[in-house]
């Protein structure tokens, strides 16, 4: 497969233009600009808040310089607190075309939309000439997530993703799994797989942090649909979720925005540090997908039992459907049918390999179902993190 070589040495599997609003007040202008290029790899992202936040700042920088991103248009109202100059500079230094539209300076909505459209139009022509280079599986960072889970998720799709994860890691790729709020009870299993004891202790501590955090809210990461689908407790949901991490050694613990330094399996801690300050962490699935993209994920494996239909801006989502009934009802939105493990006695290894093959085709340019259907969801909210400690990335 081929990829787009970026100045930091990473290779992308897409070459999108992002249009990023830096406060909700600039959202409409940004959307009008992006909408004029529907179907042409121009993705709308943004941060709605006017209060400053170091996490949001970092995530936006990582997203704007992601290997799948070729250029960035920033849309600012003008008076918001987001550090648009810092962001613009970081993008420029990365060698990508970047431009800022400041609505209050350019003269309002109509002129800003026109300015943005002109710039995106010219930039798309420049990007069409971006050279490609050869790309290996070992260049890939693959995110994994489960969403809309039911009881079949942990029986079919998640363990199949676990097989795929092990295959990818054997070939040198990096794979990220996350949602420590759904790994409640699994910490001792994970610590036993950690690359060393210090990392094992960090992993246990981060799951304990998640348990405390959710206890403070009196509400675990559990939706009514999970119960309708046969999952009874957070421990049971966690074990099902955990099965997508396969059997590889856990190489490190990262936080949103940290890029895996080399191939291997990485656990992402998504629960904020300190007292709960900003409400529920990860209010819906796309929030975690965004965080793994900020950590360099080229593509996301998304397992679903009840049937999630989301995709994502920037990096394509591959839907692995766990439940054969759901696949029949929502098959147009699904890339892989793992439900056949229950109905046709397909093996986990077969479906695991099918998942790996799908990733390679998607990396080579094939659109996923959610991409073809136009899904480009994006959420970014407020969080706070301490940097990871030295034991989190041993060797």
């Amino acid at each position: 497969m081929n990829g787009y070589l970026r100045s930091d040495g990473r290779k992308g599997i897409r070459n999108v233009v992002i249009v990023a609003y830096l406060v909700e007040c600039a959202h409409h202008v940004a959307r009008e600009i992006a909408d004029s290029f529907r179907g042409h790899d121009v993705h709308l992202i943004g941060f709605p808040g006017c209060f400053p936040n170091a996490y949001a700042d970092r995530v936006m920088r990582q997203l704007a310089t992601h290997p799948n991103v070729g250029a960035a248009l920033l849309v600012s109202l003008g008076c918001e607190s987001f550090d648009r100059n810092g962001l613009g500079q970081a993008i420029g230094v990365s060698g990508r075309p970047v431009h800022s539209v400041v609505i209050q300076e350019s003269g309002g909505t109509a002129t800003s939309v026109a300015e943005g459209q002109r710039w995106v139009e010219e930039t798309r022509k420049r990007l069409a000439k971006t050279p490609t280079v050869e790309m290996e599986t070992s260049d890939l960072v693959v995110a994994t997530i489960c969403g809309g889970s039911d009881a079949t998720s942990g029986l079919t799709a998640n363990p199949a993703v676990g097989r795929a994860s092990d295959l990818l890691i054997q070939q040198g790729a990096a794979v990220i799994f996350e949602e420590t709020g759904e790994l409640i009870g699994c910490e001792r299993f994970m610590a036993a797989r950690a690359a060393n004891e210090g990392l094992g202790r960090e992993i246990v501590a981060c799951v304990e942090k998640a348990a405390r955090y959710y206890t403070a809210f009196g509400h675990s990461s559990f939706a009514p649909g999970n119960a309708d689908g046969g999952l009874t407790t957070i421990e049971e949901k966690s074990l099902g979720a955990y099965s997508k991490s396969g059997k590889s050694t856990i190489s490190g613990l990262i936080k949103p925005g940290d890029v895996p330094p080399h191939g291997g399996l990485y656990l992402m801690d998504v629960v904020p540090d300190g007292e709960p300050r900003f409400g529920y962490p990860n209010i819906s699935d796309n929030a975690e997908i965004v965080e793994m993209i900020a950590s360099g994920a080229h593509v996301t494996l998304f397992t679903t039992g009840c049937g999630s239909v989301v995709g994502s801006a920037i990096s394509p989502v591959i839907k692995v459907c766990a439940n054969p009934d759901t696949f029949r009802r929502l098959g147009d939105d699904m890339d892989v049918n793992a439900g056949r493990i229950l109905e046709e006695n397909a093996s986990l290894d077969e479906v695991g390999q099918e998942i790996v093959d799908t990733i390679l085709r998607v990396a080579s340019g094939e659109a996923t179902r959610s991409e073809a259907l136009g899904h480009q969801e994006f959420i970014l909210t407020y969080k706070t993190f301490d940097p990871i400690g030295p034991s989190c990335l041993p060797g």
Partner: protein
Amino acid sequence: MTDSSNDPRLLRLAENDNICATRSTIEAGEAIMIGGHEVTVPRQVPIGHKIAVRAIEAGETVFKYGAPIGSATEFIGPGDYVHTHNLKSDYLPTYARGTSHES
């Protein structure tokens, strides 16, 4: 894994589990083999949901994948449907539709 003394629709995930997941829906009233004995299933167990494969006392731990997934809130007989009506988390409560939950 399935074994010959269990209905093929029962999916046993670990040796010491006291429940199995189902490969497809088992209807109320069906007589199925569990552990070599014929058992009449009192309630429907939908695909992927849990069915007890031996008697579970009130307060006893329920095991799936070889790990604890909560405790029984009442006596559960073999063949019985296991879910929010008779199994609770040992960590955090599960909210279903229609229950009020302020946070």
